[in-house]
């Protein structure tokens, strides 16, 4: 009965979605407040019904109802509860249901917390949001129904792909989806603005918190996914330039660009058309990402769906939404008035440069991801575009961008003073340069890129600190005054500092891991020891343990540094009988920001165990940096001017500091 309720609720959500997509839009055209107001209850109802549908599927999973095909194919009665729940979105149908759930969630949030939006804008935004939902609910109902029954019901399920049975999977996709799908709101705002033919600085203020929210979750999701790959895939890689990773990274790059251009729009009423375009492109890339992942056109590490009918359906949705949005843009954008002027060297100019570099970097990833597909389709020739290509092209572009990052926040609006800013960054640059030369001297004739990247990372980190010092006038005024200034800084200024700081920290981690890591591969017998970067690993022996739905072969290693035991590492090989697959469970040990990483290979008939040991210097900074970025985003989100639903400040007292 429960699956039928879920199915029925989804159909109801579809019907409500059609009403939500038409009535408020018509109301906005007719300027009828009653019709426009219909957007709010329908948006909430749509979310509630998709919520019921999602809950019904979850109930089927938790109760191991194998009469439902989807549950039978992706679950197992012995699976721990957390993986029964995460199994709901560990497959194509369920993940699409999560997709529309989050889409409807954002719609409902705007409906409930968007009290300060003009009625017509709100009506149009929710209508556009609903068109997307309707299209994707239809996609689920027609091609990917998760509620189909199986008669007779099998006694046991086929289990979830063991690689996906991990706490990482429980968290990673929902985070990523909130980010990915959250960009739909920016898209809906952009389309609503084009429909109304009116856009101003207030629009940027309304759309920014939503973009920021999506960006925060996208950052977290990508970062989590990267850490998940790092510890599960067993060779310590954390970014593979896999098409599916690129699919989430491209919207991130454009969302980052959008956040920056929306600042210019909000502050200076400039870059309006460009900001609208970015909002459209950001979500379009989310849709393209969904298409790439869901249609199976790419066969990649993450691919778990291959069905051409789905591919064609999503492609049709893609053409409809992206094509429609761009056509509307081409038609209406010229109507929008251009705003404030600014000199090339100014805060606006810096943000434009940021946008140019981010968009170029994104397009590089885009071309690299789709080029092999296009070439094969046109000429039939197969080529590969992998990590070496992206490192060679994206890398320099991003380093260039990072080099410019410290300048941006220090430049004044309208007309900046570049020599003055350079002078203020002198200390940061000097320290960065010394670090660079020092690294170069220690490394000798090593790779040139490593010292350069470290120098740039230091420059970004110190640049963020310089920005803070400048704003609070540390060492120029009494400490108490500085402190009061720091407290009085707009939260968005804090946000900028943290976000940029995090960027530098991540880069430092990337350089540490890729340039200074060490690796040792060996055959070991119990009692033997191998050494790497000053650590000794002694293989103590193997034991077997039984898990709920797997069997673990655990190898025990004693780790010593300079003769002292610093810990025990227990990597294992995990066998899942239900799918007769084996997965390597690496063991990790933190040493400050660095990590020791141990994973197992095969046992040879001679009784030796293949072992891979890595020392990964500063590797934790990669993810720590993203957390710092997320803190920055969150601080910025709490800025009074941007707070979701906050009324316009009544006091009319402008903030002392220019905010980001």
């Amino acid at each position, binding site marked *: 009965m429960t699956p039928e309720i879920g199915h029925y609720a989804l159909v109801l959500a579809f019907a409500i979605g059609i009403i939500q997509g038409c009535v408020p839009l018509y109301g906005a055209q007719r300027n009828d407040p009653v019709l426009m107001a219909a957007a709010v209850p329908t948006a909430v109802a749509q979310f509630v019904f998709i919520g019921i549908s999602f809950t019904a599927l979850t109930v089927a999973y938790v109760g191991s109802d194998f009469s439902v095909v989807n549950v039978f194919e992706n679950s197992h009665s012995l699976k721990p509860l957390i993986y029964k729940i995460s199994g709901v979105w560990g497959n194509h149908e369920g993940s699409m249901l999560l997709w529309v759930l989050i889409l409807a969630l954002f719609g409902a949030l705007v409906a409930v917390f968007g009290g300060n939006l003009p009625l017509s804008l709100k009506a149009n935004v929710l209508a556009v949001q609903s068109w997307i939902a309707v299209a994707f609910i239809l996609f689920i109902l027609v091609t990917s129904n998760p509620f189909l029954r199986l008669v007779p019901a099998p006694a046991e399920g086929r289990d979830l792909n063991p690689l996906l049975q991990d706490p990482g999977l429980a968290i990673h996709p929902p985070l990523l989806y909130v980010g990915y799908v959250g960009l739909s709101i920016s898209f809906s705002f952009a389309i609503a603005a084009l429909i109304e033919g009116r856009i101003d600085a207030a629009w940027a203020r309304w759309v920014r918190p939503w973009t920021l929210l999506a960006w925060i979750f996208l950052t977290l999701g990508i970062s989590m996914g990267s850490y998940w790959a790092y510890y599960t895939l067993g060779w310590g890689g954390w970014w593979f330039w896999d098409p599916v990773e690129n699919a989430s990274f491209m919207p991130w790059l454009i969302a980052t660009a959008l956040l920056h251009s929306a600042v210019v729009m909000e502050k200076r009423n400039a870059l309006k058309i460009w900001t609208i375009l970015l909002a459209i492109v950001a979500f379009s890339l989310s849709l393209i990402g969904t298409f790439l992942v869901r249609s199976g056109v790419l066969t990649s590490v993450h691919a778990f769906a291959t069905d051409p009918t789905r591919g064609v359906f999503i492609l049709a949705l893609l053409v409809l939404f992206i094509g429609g949005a761009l056509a509307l843009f081409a038609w209406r954008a010229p109507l929008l008035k251009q705003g404030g002027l600014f000199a090339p060297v100014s805060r606006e100019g810096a943000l434009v440069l940021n946008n*140019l570099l981010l968009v170029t970097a994104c397009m590089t990833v885009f071309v690299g991801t789709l080029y092999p597909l296009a070439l094969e389709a046109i000429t039939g020739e197969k080529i590969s575009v992998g990590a070496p290509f992206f490192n060679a092209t994206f890398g320099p572009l991003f380093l260039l961008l990072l080099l410019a990052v410290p300048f941006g926040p220090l430049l004044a609006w309208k007309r900046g003073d570049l020599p003055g800013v350079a002078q203020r960054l002198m200390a940061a640059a000097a320290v960065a340069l010394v670090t660079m030369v020092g690294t170069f001297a220690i490394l000798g004739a090593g790779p040139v890129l490593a010292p350069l990247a470290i120098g740039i990372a230091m420059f970004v980190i110190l640049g963020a600190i310089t920005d803070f010092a400048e704003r609070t006038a540390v060492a120029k005024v009494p400490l108490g005054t500085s402190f009061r200034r720091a407290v009085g800084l707009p939260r968005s200024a804090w946000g900028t500092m943290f976000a940029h700081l995090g960027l530098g920290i991540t880069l430092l981690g990337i350089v540490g891991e890729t340039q200074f890591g060490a690796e040792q591969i060996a*055959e070991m017998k119990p009692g033997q020891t191998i050494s790497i970067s000053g650590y000794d690993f002694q293989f103590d022996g193997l034991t*077997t343990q039984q898990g709920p739905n797997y069997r673990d072969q655990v190898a025990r290693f004693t780790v010593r540094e300079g003769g002292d035991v610093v810990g025990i590492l227990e990597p294992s090989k995990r*066998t899942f009988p239900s799918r*007769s697959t084996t*997965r390597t469970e690496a063991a990790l040990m933190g040493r400050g920001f660095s990590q020791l990483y141990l994973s*197992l290979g095969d046992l040879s008939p001679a009784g030796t165990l293949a072992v891979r040991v890595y020392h990964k210097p500063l590797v934790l900074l990669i993810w720590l940096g993203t957390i710092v970025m997320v803190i920055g985003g969150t601080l910025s989100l709490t800025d009074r001017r941007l707070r979701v639903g906050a009324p316009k400040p009544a006091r009319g007292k402008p903030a002392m500091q220019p905010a980001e």
Partner: protein
Amino acid sequence: MRWLRLIVVLLLLVPASHAVAVQPDEILKDPAQEARARVLSKQLRCMVCQNQSIDDSDAPLARDLRILVRERLQAGDSNSQVLDFLVQRYGEFVLLQPRLHWRTALLWLAPLILLIGGGLILFLIARRRGGTSATDMAAPQGGVLTADEERRLAGLIKPEDR
């Protein structure tokens, strides 16, 4: 008793499907040659895998290719000779970083075209804007508008009228 446990474990370990990529028995004696082999392996695709280099993959084919790369290096091939050899055998598909060729020209030049093209557009816009703001502040240099400026002016005024 440890050996007994090991035997039990060995018996339990029937399908050992998952293994870490480079196996200890593949490693070359000469560290310099091994390092070159690793660098090359990272640039070569495991053709039966999904976006994995032969350095990362544990597929049997990847192992065969890793051994092949090492054999060529031991035979005295240079890095590019090894790559040439593999391309000849398996086609361009084996390279994770495609070579510059007319078919891949667009791929390689895309970042440059975008950066330079985008920069140029921005420069033109900035110059145009710069010109307009200069007229705000100072007297225009010439007295007469060119045909191009006239057209641009018309374009600027129109949206205001609607």
